[in-house]
């Protein structure tokens, strides 16, 4: 489903990804683990098309389409979702307005009918409730005044609303207390665990993987995948550290 081959990318002229090769078939959840500075977030941003992250070699295909040739909004309409490590604050725009505009833009891009205000609010409320987010928060400006945990929960509400085919989740578990971690884990399973969907779960720690069992675990170091294995690899990393496991 997501097919990355020999991907090289640099930021401000500095090479960060040095030949990442990775294939995530439909129906699978893959975890990418690695130390700070290994290129995990860069990989996420490159897949979503953040300006300033330039691909110097290699390819990334999504359902057979050249992902790297698409604009960020086209990737979203094609079904790709990026869960941000640091969700962005947008004063003056309510979450409801932001999400309705986003969803309807995607629907227009796919030639589907737009949702009316009423339909959208009902849908957004139900998704927020499923993640234990106070629906009043949807009236507030995007992420403004949200705690770290609330922002991450809100990212998952967004994912529930967008119903993407594939999610790249960049350290969605950081800054979460145990209850939020459980809610987010359950959200990922509910929204994304399906035969026709896929997830790339970028994380630092094993703890989210207690709630979202990955099919495969990859270790990213110095911009390359140095080891791959089953779920047991995550536990080994947790036990022995990256230096040991990656050696």
């Amino acid at each position: 489903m997501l097919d990355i081959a020999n991907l090289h990318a640099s930021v401000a002229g500095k090479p960060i990804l040095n030949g990442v090769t990775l294939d995530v078939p439909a129906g699978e959840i893959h975890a990418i683990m690695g130390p700070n500075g290994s290129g995990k977030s860069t990989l996420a941003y490159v897949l979503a098309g953040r300006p300033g992250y330039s691909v110097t070699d290699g390819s990334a295909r999504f359902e057979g389409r050249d992902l790297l040739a698409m604009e960020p909004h086209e990737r979203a309409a094609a079904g790709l979702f990026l869960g941000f490590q640091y969700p962005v604050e947008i004063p003056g725009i309510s979450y409801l307005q932001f999400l309705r505009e986003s969803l309807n833009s995607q629907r227009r891009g796919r030639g589907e009918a737009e949702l009316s205000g009423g339909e959208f609010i009902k849908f957004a409320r139900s998704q927020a409730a499923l993640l234990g987010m106070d629906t009043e928060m949807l009236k507030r400006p995007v992420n403004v005044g949200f705690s770290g945990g609330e922002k991450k929960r809100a990212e998952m509400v967004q994912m529930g609303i967008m119903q993407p085919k594939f999610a790249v989740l960049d350290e969605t578990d950081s800054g979460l207390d145990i209850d939020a971690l459980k809610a987010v884990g359950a959200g990922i399973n509910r929204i994304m665990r399906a035969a026709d969907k896929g997830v790339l779960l970028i994380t630092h720690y094993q703890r989210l993987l207690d709630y979202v069992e990955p099919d495969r675990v990859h270790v990213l170091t110095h911009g390359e995948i140095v080891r791959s294995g089953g779920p047991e690899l995550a536990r080994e990393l947790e036990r022995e550290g990256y230096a040991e496991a990656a050696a």
Partner: protein
Amino acid sequence: MTAPFPSRKQEEWRYADLESLKPVWEQFAAPVTLTVGDGEELEEIWLPVSDDVQLRRVQLALGSGAKGRIFALNAAPVYGRIELEISLEDGAEFELFGANIGTGLSTNEFATNVRHLGIGGRSRQTIRSVLNGNAVGSYLGKVEVARGAQKTDAEQSVKAMLLDRGATANCKPELEIFADDVKCTHGASVGELDPIQLFYAESRGMNPATARALLLEGFVMGLWDTAKQPETIGEAARQSLRRIV
């Protein structure tokens, strides 16, 4: 009697488009006076009209404990000027929330003179400008705190977004303080849209034009949050923004 035609040598007219103003000066020259009695409240919403040149000159006198709030959208196609002279007696409160939205060769400006005459007055002026093309958006704001107007709290916040290289924002706060126990703050910034906010919106499916329009809307729409009836001015601001994004 018509007031004398201004000159750019006068500080409060230094960025004005006097050439455009001249032919219509007579009809605008006399200021409108509004008086808000002790403890009373006034809320005004000022929308742009369709004329090329629009000038609004208002004197607002706030009695003791009176509250005056003005929400103003300045979006004239050629020249728009909103001129306010406010006086505050003891404990009076004044708030101005204004937007300059300009395109082409237009000039839109706020020129205010807030005079704190009594004790414990509070004034808050918030101006946001969104400008493209070669448009000019200005704020010239004078705050005077009279001798004895202790515990005055005056605030000026001015921000501008320039969408094109040719656009200009001017901001000129001026303080004249004759009391020693007062708080007068002012802040100004001129910027462009935040790239990470744009990317966030685009990553959710908005095309770049929609994302820009939404972010600019957010920049301006926060001004009307506290209006009793924000709908009309909100919609007018949205329409003005749509013309320039």
